[in-house]
């Protein structure tokens, strides 16, 4: 437990100190979301209808772009080998690293979402479902992303490959999260998609660290 706590503090500290941490992700998130009204032009009615989906898509992309450094820096300088020899099982290392990723990427996105929701004219009824969906869904994004990051850790310039591997895995989260928001926006029940979204995140909690650790073991041999 102490090892896990130490690893978490180390990873959060590292990502906060290098490259602006969560700020870069949030800036990217806001930029992508703000491209939409520019692209849509005068169609302000359409904006309210697509706002939830746009915010979710932007969150997904922001999460994706910060994934490539999840294991790579540690893999390159050998820290990952030390972690593998340490007291924590590799599954727990992957899980803790995913948690650190979420704390520095997912959490700032959630904090920035209300402002974007306001600017994109999201219907008031959809606000809390959006926040819930982001809170429930983004941990899943970090956990699934850990699998992709572990798979591509040894690939040079694996960024594009990482997107191709991870984006299909993100689709259930995106579909259910966006559906919860769009249903709430027209006054339908949002609990069912939110519950299913929670199920997807819980499944990622099991599958993500397992698959990521398996991939890391292959890459380290």
């Amino acid at each position, binding site marked *: 437990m102490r090892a896990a706590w130490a690893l978490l503090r180390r990873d959060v500290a590292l990502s906060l100190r290098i490259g602006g941490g969560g700020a870069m992700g949030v800036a990217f998130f806001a930029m992508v979301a703000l491209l939409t009204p520019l692209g849509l032009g005068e169609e302000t009615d359409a904006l309210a209808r697509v706002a939830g989906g746009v915010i979710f898509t932007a969150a997904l992309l922001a999460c994706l772009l910060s994934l490539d450094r999840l294991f790579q820096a540690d893999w390159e300088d050998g820290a990952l080998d030390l972690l593998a020899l340490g007291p924590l099982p590799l599954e727990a290392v992957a899980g803790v690293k995913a948690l650190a990723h979420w704390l520095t990427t997912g959490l700032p996105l959630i904090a920035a979402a209300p402002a974007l929701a306001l600017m994109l004219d999201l219907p008031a009824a959809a606000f809390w479902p959006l926040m819930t969906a982001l809170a429930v869904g983004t941990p899943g994004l970090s956990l699934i992303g850990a699998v992709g990051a572990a798979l*591509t850790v*040894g690939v040079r310039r694996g960024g594009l490959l990482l997107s191709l*591997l991870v*984006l*299909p895995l993100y689709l259930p989260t995106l*579909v259910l999260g966006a559906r919860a928001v769009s249903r709430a926006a027209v006054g339908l029940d949002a609990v069912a998609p939110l519950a299913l979204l929670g199920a997807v995140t819980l499944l990622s909690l099991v*599958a993500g660290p397992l*698959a990521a650790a398996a991939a890391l073991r*292959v890459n380290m041999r």
Partner: protein
Amino acid sequence: MSGARRSANSEAMSENRSLWRYANPAEFMRVSGVILPWAAGAALVLLLGGAAWGLFFVPPDYRQGETVRIMYVHVPAAMMAINIYFIMAVASAVGLIRRHHVSFLVAKAAAPIGAGLTLAAIVTGAIWGQPTWGTWWVWDPKLTSILIMLFFYLGYIGLWAAVDDPEKAADLSGVLCLTGVVFAFLSRYAVEIFGDQTLHQPASLSLDAETNVADVFYWPLLVTIAGFYAFFIALVLLRARTEIRLRRARALKLRRAAMETA
């Protein structure tokens, strides 16, 4: 392959490798060499027969007219699109658990076929949808989930291509395939569960449905589906055999180079 050549090959391969691992490809080459002509022959007969039956001896549908005939390509292709990924997942699981190397090669060989058939299902569906629904594409749950399948195949193929070490590539893509199969199912149900409007008709045939397509359309469809399976088996075996031969050739080349430099 003659016995003498085979033993020479396996001798070349077994250098600083355990014999068990290369006993397997040799056995695979023997068995697949027997199955391959039969599967290829069955595919030829069933596909040609089914196509002729479906194209010339089935009446046009009373609402869809002649376009119904595209079903004999579309339905088997769409079926294979989903089943091949599942087969790949099973092969990857066997490969990862039993360290069975040929199993990975079968999964690798199956992936481009699956991607091709997925693309075929999408294209034939679009060609059929244009006159029938009046649109090439709709974001309908069934269409969306088949498009998602295509990206799962592309990711798998991409990972194989990106990792240099074939041993690592095999294991990593196996992990990806097993993770992918879970999320492929999830995204399929995620897009279908709240699919409010759907243009796509329900499954053309399933074992437990009360009503399938009418019998005149049904039997040639079964023939073409069987043909697609035979075609898939033949192609997978051929591709896996080619891969094994490529690796043998590479190993022999390396060995010769090592002997020359020594």
